[in-house]
């Protein structure tokens, strides 16, 4: 996948305009899905467009030795969202208390989200509603890990956090999700 992206970038830089168009088509759904969860539906199209224009302007600066294209484009997306929310005077990706983050590290995966909770989460509207209720840092880790299939290491690069912190965010996010499912029952 990453090799495909690098090939398309190389082709584009060699003068094949259509290669960049293919990159836009490939990543628009992912960038849209990620962005809408933080900025809502009204401005999401503008944000996605802004992201691709930044990518187009900076494509020559992309260095595949530093990170993959997917990590790079999501970093640009995250920064664009942060800038947009800063203009709206909102703080989204604030740092979490590390003590709070390490809470739940000893709990087994099966206990974090039992089968009953998973069954409830099959309702996609409920899942999206509960994701909206999560802290932005937890939400982004879950989206990037489960929807974008990024590794913890890639997520760490993207959000500029050490690997263990990302793993803790992930675990804590699942625990919060379980709490929200329980709350929703009552």
């Amino acid at each position, binding site marked *: 996948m990453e090799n495909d992206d690098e090939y398309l970038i190389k082709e584009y830089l060699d003068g094949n305009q259509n290669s960049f168009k293919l990159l836009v*088509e490939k990543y628009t759904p992912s960038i849209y899905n990620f962005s809408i969860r933080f900025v809502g539906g009204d401005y999401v199209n503008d944000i996605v*467009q802004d992201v691709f*224009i930044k990518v187009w302007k900076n494509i020559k600066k992309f260095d595949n030795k530093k990170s993959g294209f997917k990590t790079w484009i999501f970093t640009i997306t995250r920064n664009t969202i942060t800038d947009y929310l800063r203009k709206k005077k909102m703080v989204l990706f604030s740092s979490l208390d590390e003590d709070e983050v390490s809470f739940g590290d000893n709990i087994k995966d099966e206990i974090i989200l039992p089968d009953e909770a998973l069954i409830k989460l099959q309702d996609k509207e409920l899942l999206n509603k509960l994701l909206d209720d999560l802290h932005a840092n937890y939400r982004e880790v*879950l989206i990037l890990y489960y929807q974008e299939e990024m590794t913890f290491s890639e997520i760490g690069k993207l959000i500029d956090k050490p690997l263990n912190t990302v793993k803790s965010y992930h675990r804590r996010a699942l625990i919060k999700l379980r709490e929200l499912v329980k709350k929703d029952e009552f």
Partner: protein
Amino acid sequence: MEQNLQKLFKNATYSPEGRLSGDIWNAIEYKNAQITKWKRFGYLGASVLSLFGSAFSIKSLIAEFSRLGFYDYLSLAFSDSGVIATYWKEYTLSLVDSLPIASLAVLFFLLFVLFISIRRASYQFKNRLLIS
């Protein structure tokens, strides 16, 4: 659990309107066309300015050569080669001394700008022709 969660999350993605990627591409093409247009005019302007600058610089360079006596030293080389063979060191130094270095540097710089801007402008025009 991980695979189940992956399925659940994949099922809950938000999808953009079908035309979004097309709109984005159109916006990029529009910006590209704007930038290319400005670049084309910029290079064309630089070509014209450096062309006039070079012409003016050549004119003043010729005057400088006469003023500093460069032609006199040069003609000496053809009229009295014996003197030059004897005093070749002094002759070379005088010849170099009579060169209008600053004017030459300005002319080379303008010719360099002219060359680069013509090359870039022709590349931009060629691209435009290929696209249209």
